[in-house]
C-alpha cells in the first residue's frame, strides 16, 4: 500500500500516467478545493444541520463546524493500475459470487478482483475499474466523467449544493478507484453486477468514483456495497456516483453503506434520467461516523420516472445528513421518493428533500416522504421536505414524520408473549417494510435485513 497525501505533489504523481485532459481536470478541481474554506456548520446553510456527534454537543449549538475532521490525516493511495487479480478479497464477501453477471472488488482504493461473465463479454458490456477504463475508454470518460452529473459548476437547481461542496472538489482532484459500467444500446443484462468496496487500513482515504452509462433501451442492475473490514480503523470516504439512464433505459442501482463508525463519509450522487427511462435507486446507510450525502435525480427527458428508496439505521453517535433532490426538467415525468430512518442511542439525522419542477415540466407527478422512527429518548431527527414549483399542471405530495417507538404497539406485541427486544425488532422491520417491499431483488432485501438485525443486537 502506498500512502499518499492530499497535496499538489501527490496529485501530480497520480496523474502522471493519465491523459492530459484528466490531469488538467484534477488540477482545476484542486484549485477549487484550495479556494474553498472548510464548511462552517453554523454559517453555511447547507451544512447547518451537519454535526459530528463525537466532538460536538449538538444541544449547545456552539462551534458546530467539522471540528473532529482533519482531512490531512487521511491518505489517498496510488492506484496500482491493473494489478493482478487476487483471490484474497477481504472479509464478508459472499463466495462464490452467486447470480452475478460481473464482480469487482476494491480494497483501500486498489482493484483486487474483477471478473466478467461470458454474458457481459458477448453483449459488449464494458465493466472495469476506472483506471483501466481511462486507458481503454478515454472518449467515454472524457465525455461523461464529472462533466454532466456530479460537476463543480452546474446550472442544475440541485447543483447549488455541489457548488459549495469542498468535498466534491477534493474528489475531483484526488479520485482513485471506482469503476465504469457501459451498457450498449439495446443490451439487457439479466443478472446483477456486484461491486464491493472495502476499507481495511487505518487512516485510509477512499475516493471511489462510480460511473454508470446505460445507453438507449438497455437494462441493468448494479449492487454496490461499501464496508469496512475492521470495526475501528478510521477512514475517510469521499465518493461520487454518476448514473446516466439513457432513453428508454431501465436502471436499478443499489448502494449499501456499511463503513464502521470511525469513517467520515462524504458523497455526491446524481442520476440523469433521459426520455422514457426508468431509474430505481436504493440507498441504504448503516455505517459511518458522520455522513453527508447529496443525492439527486434529474428527470431530464419527457416521460421518464425515478423511484428513490432510502433506508438508514443509525446508532451510537452516528450522524447522517442527507439532501435529496427530485429535479423535474421535462413534462410528463414522475418521481417517487420514500426515505425511512431508524435512530438508536444518541444518533442524529437530518434529511432535507427538495422537489424542483421547472416551468416546462407540466404534468409532473412527484411524491416525497421521509419517516423517522426513534428508538431512544436521546436520538434526534430533523426533517425538512421542500417544494419549488414553477409549472402549472403539477401533482406534488410530500410529507415527513418523526416519532418515538409507540408504547401501545410494544405493549400489544409483548402482551402476546414476545420480549421487548423482539417487539422492537418487529416494529423496526415493519417500519422498513414499505421500503423493502419495493426493492425488486430478494438478495438485497435479505442483506438489508441482516444489517438491520445486526444493529438491533
Amino acid at each position, binding site marked *: 500500500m502506498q500512502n499518499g497525501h492530499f497535496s499538489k505533489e501527490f496529485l501530480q504523481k497520480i496523474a502522471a500516467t493519465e491523459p492530459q485532459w484528466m490531469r488538467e481536470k484534477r488540477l482545476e478541481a484542486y484549485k477549487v478545493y484550495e479556494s474553498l474554506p472548510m464548511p462552517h456548520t453554523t454559517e453555511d446553510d447547507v451544512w447547518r444541520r451537519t454535526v459530528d456527534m463525537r466532538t460536538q454537543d449538538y444541544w449547545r449549538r456552539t462551534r458546530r463546524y467539522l471540528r473532529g475532521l482533519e482531512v490531512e490525516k487521511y491518505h489517498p493511495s496510488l492506484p496500482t493500475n491493473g494489478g493482478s487479480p487476487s483471490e484474497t478479497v477481504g472479509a464478508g464477501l459472499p463466495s462464490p459470487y452467486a447470480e452475478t453477471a460481473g464482480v469487482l472488488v476494491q480494497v483501500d482504493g486498489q482493484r483486487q478482483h474483477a471478473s466478467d461473465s461470458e454474458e457481459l463479454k458477448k453483449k459488449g458490456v464494458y465493466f472495469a475499474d476506472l483506471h483501466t477504463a481511462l486507458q481503454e475508454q478515454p472518449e467515454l470518460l472524457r465525455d461523461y466523467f464529472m462533466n454532466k452529473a456530479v460537476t463543480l459548476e452546474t446550472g442544475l437547481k440541485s447543483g447549488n449544493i455541489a457548488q459549495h461542496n469542498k468535498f466534491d472538489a477534493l474528489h475531483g482532484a484526488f479520485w482513485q478507484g471506482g469503476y465504469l459500467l457501459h451498457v450498449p444500446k439495446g443490451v439487457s443484462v439479466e443478472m446483477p453486477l456486484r461491486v464491493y468496496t472495502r476499507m481495511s487500513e487505518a487512516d485510509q482515504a477512499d475516493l471511489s468514483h462510480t460511473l454508470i452509462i446505460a445507453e438507449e433501451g438497455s437494462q441493468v442492475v448494479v449492487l454496490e456495497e461499501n464496508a469496512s473490514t475492521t470495526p475501528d480503523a478510521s477512514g475517510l470516504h469521499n465518493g461520487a456516483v454518476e448514473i446516466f439512464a439513457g432513453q428508454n433505459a431501465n436502471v436499478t442501482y443499489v448502494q449499501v453503506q456499511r463503513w464502521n463508525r470511525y469513517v467520515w463519509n462524504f458523497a455526491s450522487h446524481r442520476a440523469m434520467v433521459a426520455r422514457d427511462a426508468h431509474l430505481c435507486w436504493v440507498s441504504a446507510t448503516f455505517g459511518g461516523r458522520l455522513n453527508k450525502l447529496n443525492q439527486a435525480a434529474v428527470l431530464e427527458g419527457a416521460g421518464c420516472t425515478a423511484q428513490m428508496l432510502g433506508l438508514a439505521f443509525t446508532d451510537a453517535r452516528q450522524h447522517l445528513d442527507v439532501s435529496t433532490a427530485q429535479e423535474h426538467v421535462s413534462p410528463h415525468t414522475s418521481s417517487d421518493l420514500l426515505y425511512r430512518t431508524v435512530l438508536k442511542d444518541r444518533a442524529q439525522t437530518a434529511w432535507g428533500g427538495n422537489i424542483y419542477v421547472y416551468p416546462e415540466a407540466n404534468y409532473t407527478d412527484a411524491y416525497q416522504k421521509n419517516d423517522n422512527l426513534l428508538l431512544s429518548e436521546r436520538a434526534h431527527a430533523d426533517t425538512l421536505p421542500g417544494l419549488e414549483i414553477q409549472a402549472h399542471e403539477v401533482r406534488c405530495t410530500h410529507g415527513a414524520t418523526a416519532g418515538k417507538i409507540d408504547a401501545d404497539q410494544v*405493549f*400489544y406485541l409483548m402482551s402476546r408473549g414476545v420480549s421487548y427486544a*423482539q417487539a422492537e425488532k418487529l416494529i423496526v422491520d415493519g417500519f422498513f417494510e414499505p421500503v423493502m417491499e419495493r426493492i425488486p431483488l430478494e438478495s438485497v432485501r435479505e442483506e438489508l435485513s441482516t444489517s438491520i438485525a445486526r444493529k438491533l443486537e
Partner: protein
Amino acid sequence: MSKDLVINDLHISVQGKPIIKGLNLSVKQGEIHALMGPNGSGKSTLANGLMGHPLYEIDSGEVIFSGVDVLELEANERAKLGLFLAFQYPTAIPGVTLANFLRLAVSAVRAKEGNGSDNDGLIPMREFRGELREKMRQLGVDDSFARRYLNDGFSGGEKKRAEILQLAMLEPKIAILDETDSGLDIDAVRIVGESVSQLIGPELGVLIITHYPRLLDYIRPQFVHILLDGNIVESGGWELAQMLEAEGYDPIREKYGIKEEQNGEV
C-alpha cells in the same frame, strides 16, 4: 397445578386519577365470568392493568396468577404464564404480518424454561403454518389473514376475529375479552361468540368484559359481576345479566348513588 387468577384489593390509577378502587375477583380455569359495567366504569383499566400496560399504575393490591404475584412481571412474562387479553381496541402494527408475529409469540409462550437448544427457539415453519391454517379454518377466518399486516386497515369485525385467532393459537389458561362484541353488527357478534365458545373447556377460564349482554347469548357465564365506579358492586348468576338487559344500569347506579360518568368511554 390449577392456574387461577386471584385479584385482591386492587387499586389502579391512570395519569394520577384513581380508576379501580379496591377490587376483588377470582377466576378459575374452566369458569366463565362476565364483568359488566357502563362506559367509563373502569373495565378496560382493569384489563390493561392485569396485563401490565405501563400506563396503568398499580397503586396497591395483589394479582396472583397460578401462584405467582404477576404485578412485578412484564406483559410478556404474564403471557407466558398463560394470561391473555383480547383488546377492546387492538393496535395496528403496519408492516408486521400476523403470521410472522404469531409464530414468534407462539414460540415464546410454548418455550419451556431451559429448553433453548434449537436454532432461534422458533417452532418449525411447517408445523406452525399447518396449525395456523387449521385454526383459521375452525374460526372461519380467510387464509389471506395470515399475510396481512397486524390490524392494519382491518375492519372492526376483522380486528376482533384476529384477537380470537391469537387466543386460539396461544392457548392461554385465563383469557380476558375486553368488549370483544362492541362495535360489531349482529352477524359479527354471532361469529365472534361462536368462535369463542369453540375454545371454551375445562382448561380455559374466561373473563368477558362487556356493557351489553349480547355476547352472553353465545357464551353463557356462570358468574356475572357488575362494575360501577371502579368497584364490583354486585355479583351473581345469569339473572344479573337478565336484569341489566331489562332495566339498564340506571337502577343499579341509583342504588349505589353513583352519577353517570361525564367523560364516558375512552
